[in-house]
Each structure stands twice: as C-alpha cells, then as structure tokens.
C-alpha cells in the first residue's frame, strides 16, 4: 500500500470510527440536549435530506456560492489594480486595511436596513467579508511578480492584456488561492450568521428555529449539514487549486534542487495536473 493510500484510509477511517463510537455511546442517552445519534441521523435523513433540503439547504448554498463568487471577481479585480499601480495601492490600502478590520458581521444591521432581510443582503455580507483576504493576497501576489518575467514580457512586446492574463495572473496564482482559502470559512460563517439574524429560510435560520422549538435533534442535524457543507466546499477548492497550481509545486521543488532528472513525459497538453511527478519529488526530498 502506498503512502498516499494509507493517508487516504486514515482520513476516511478515523471520522468513521468516531461516528461509530458516538453512535454506540449515545444509543441509550436520555439527555435532552444530547439525543442519541440514531435520533439525530433519523432527523437528518427525514428533514435535512428530505423536505428541508430544497427549502433550507439549497437557498443557503445559493447565497454562499453567489456571495463567494462575487467576492472572487471583485477581490481579484481590486487586488490586481492595487498590485499593478503603486498609486492605486497607496490610495486604497488604508481604506482596505480599515474596512477589513471591521468584522463584516457588524455590517449585517446596516445590510438589513439598506437591502432588507432577503437574499441580496446575505450575498452582500458574504461578498464583502470574503473580498478582503482575496484583495490583499492578490495585490501581494501581483506586486511580487518576478521582475525578469516582466522584462521578458516587455522585450517580447506582449500586449497589456496578454501580460495580465498570461504572466501576471498565473504568477500571482498561488497567492490568489491563499486568499481564496482564507476567505472560504468566512463565507460559511457569514452565511450562517446572516441567516440567524434575519431570514425566513436557510440552514442558519432552521438551526435557530429548531433550537427555539426545542427540536434538538433537528438542531444537531443542521450542524452536521454545516459540517459536511464546509468539508465539501473545502474539498472543491483544494481540488481546483491542485489542478490550477500543479505547476507551482513542481516548480518550487525544482528550485530547492529536488527536480526530477528524468521527468516523465506527459502524453498530451491536457494532462496538466502532473501530480504523480510532484509526489515522487516530495518523497525523494
């Protein structure tokens, strides 16, 4: 069994074992606050994966996806602007630093007043909160593009757009993804909190409702849904990063002198993940 397979096995088995232990221990629980896992899973199955899924989970996912998506677009655009122009950076940086130090949850009351309690308020709050880590990381990445590569782009007379898309953005890619990773948990938190404070549906709303109605198993079920959702979005981002930045791991390894001397030829241009080679390097190091 390879090291990778073993890691994967541990990653799957340990949570499974914990769930089984929880299930067995809680089987005879009479505690009102900690109902048996069996009851929770029953509710999870009948409500959260049943009628609650379309009514509560889907709206939440939608808000999070749109808010996070907007944050990526706005964050990368503003970040690139701040990274390319010293003038824009000096102008915007104090404002960005000020705004990001305000917890965006505090803007929910403002959002409610201006945008109401609907979806647009939640999307706005999520987008606002998630944008700052992306802005700052993108600006950093754009500012630290290797100067020699800029010289290369200049001598070959690449147009401004080509320079941006083919040189600056890929070069800033690792840092842009660092921003994306930092803001992903924020998106989840802001989604839940905004739904708890002002909403008529959504996971956060449902959990709070379940709690006030003393349907504790439904509350626990919602928390499990959030956990699974958080795990899945993180998985999606990790996979996306692995694909987009496959070159980066190999490149870094080669700079540290761990480059493979006889690299495996890739069969076609599409197979860009190149992950097997990267893993081999790591083991060698």
């Amino acid at each position, binding site marked *: 069994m390879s090291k990778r397979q073993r890691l994967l096995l541990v990653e799957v088995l340990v949570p499974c074992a914990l769930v089984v232990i929880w299930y067995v221990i809680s089987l005879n629980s009479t505690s009102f606050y900690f109902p048996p896992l069996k009851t929770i899973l029953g509710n999870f199955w009948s409500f959260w994966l049943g009628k609650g899924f379309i009514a509560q989970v889907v709206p939440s996912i939608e808000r999070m996806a749109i808010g996070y998506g907007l944050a990526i677009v706005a964050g990368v655009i503003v970040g690139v602007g701040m990274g390319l122009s010293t003038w824009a950076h000096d102008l915007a940086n104090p404002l960005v630093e000020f705004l990001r130090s305000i917890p965006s949850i505090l803007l929910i009351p403002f959002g409610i007043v201006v945008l109401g309690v609907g979806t647009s308020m939640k999307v706005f709050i999520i987008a606002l909160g998630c944008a700052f880590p992306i802005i700052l990381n993108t600006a950093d990445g754009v500012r630290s593009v290797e100067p020699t*590569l800029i010289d290369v782009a200049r*001598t*070959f*007379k*690449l147009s401004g757009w*080509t320079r941006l898309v083919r040189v600056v953005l890929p070069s800033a890619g690792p840092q842009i993804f660092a921003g994306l990773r930092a803001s992903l948990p924020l998106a989840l938190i802001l989604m839940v909190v905004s739904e708890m404070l002002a909403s008529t549906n959504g996971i956060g709303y449902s959990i709070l409702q379940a709690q006030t109605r003393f349907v504790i198993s439904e509350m626990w079920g919602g928390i499990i849904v959030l956990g699974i959702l958080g795990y899945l979005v993180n998985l999606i981002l990790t996979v996306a990063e692995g694909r987009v930045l496959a070159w980066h791991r190999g490149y870094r390894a080669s700079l540290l002198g761990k480059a493979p001397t006889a690299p495996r030829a890739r*069969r076609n*241009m599409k197979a860009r993940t190149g992950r097997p080679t990267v893993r081999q390097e790591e083991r060698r190091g």
Partner: protein
Amino acid sequence: MADAKADLNGPREKERPPLVRIEALQKTYGSGPGEHRAIADISLDVDDGEFACIVGPSGCGKTTLLRCLSGLLPPSSGTVKISGKLVEGPPAEMALVFQEYNRSLFPWMSVYSNVAMPLKKRLRAKERDLVVNEALHAVGLEGTGNKYPWQLSGGMQQRVAIARAVAYRPAILLMDEPFASVDAQTRNELEDLILQVRHEYGVTILFVTHDIDEAVYMADRVVVLSKPPCSIVKILPVPLPRPRQQVATKQLPEYTHLRAEVYGMIVGHA
C-alpha cells in the same frame, strides 16, 4: 565587421549605417551624494551579422549596458540607435536571453508554450507551430515541448530560452551572461549551439560575458570594458577562422595570444 577599427569616441562615416549605434551612452543611478555612475561613456557600432562579445570585470556595468541597449532602461544621456531608429523602449527586432533561465521562463507554461508565447501576435497557429518546432529542433530539444521548463536541466532550460529568442526571428540577439549558471561542459556545448544557431538564422549577436575564453572563442570582435564606471578599454578584432571548434580553435597560437591580451587588459584595469 570589415571596418571595425578601434576608433573609440568619434563619429564615423560609412556607406551603410551600422545595425546598432551606441553614441556617448552614460548611465548614473540615483543623484546627489548617493549617486552611482555605472556607465561613464560608451560609443560603439555593431554591424549587421556581427558577433560582438562584451567582456569586463564583474560588476563593471555590463548588465546595465545591455539593459540600456534593449530599451528596458533609459540611459542618463547619449543614444542607442537600431537601423538609424532611436531606441526608446524594447525594439521589436530584438530578443534577449537572460542569465537566470529559471527566472526568465514562464514556469506555468510548457516548453512549447514558452517558445510560442511571443509569436501569438505575429503568426497564425499553423505557421507558429512550424516556427516553434523548428526552433526547438535547432536547439536540440525536439520532443520536450510538453514538459515544463523546470523539469529540465539548467542547460536545457537555457536552450529553451534560446529557442524562444530565435523563434522570435530577431535582427539582434542580446545575451546577458547566458551561460554563467551552467557547468563547464554544458557551457561549451551551448557556445557551439549559439554559433550554429547564428549560422542558421544569420542573426547579429551582442553577447555579454565575464568569461574571456568564451568571448574570444565566439566573437568577431571583443569589446573590453573597464572597471566601473565603465568605458571601452579596447575593441579587438578576432580574426580566427570559422567554423570555430572547441579543441582546434583553442589550440591556435592566435587564440592564446588574444586571450592573453584581453586578460591583461581586464586585470590591468580591474
């Protein structure tokens, strides 16, 4: 290169204007008490098809000179003209090969894309494919197009940079100590590669190096620079027969003699 006499700082009359004309070039970094004079005064003509090597003690401002030539750095005073046209930014008929191959190639692109990248504007996909494959073939890298540059050895990466430069079909190829970070044997191979590529593509080459052997071995003329602030100590024609060969050429008494002469000048002024 016929009338490439060491006539240093005066204007010269010729039938045809030289491909590159550097006139009274000066470069000073900063101003006031902290200023640093990198280039004192350089005037130089390079003819079409010529191979000129610029040698000088390390830190003498060779790279600054090359950056001024390529239009990446504006000179403090003086001018650089290419085919009579003033250089104010990187000229379209020029390509550069940098010393650090691991910084000058795009690590997120395959070897093929690295070479094809500058041609996107000029050529259609079909012609581009032809030109790129030809260039990769010329530097002995056929079959590596799908790899990333960082999967290759240092010498091979520099070959990719050379392929990218020649595929661009420049009239002038500027090379900034391109072989300073590769081992000695690879360096000799790459020297011969450049001579061969020059023969095939008929490109004018301005080659900056601190290696005297390399300069004398490759050049039609060796331009010797002084220690900083740099100026031209002497321009030496190299009348060694071509094609040059690593062993045979370096055994010639003229080679040894020229090498010693350049060495004396550099050490004398270092």
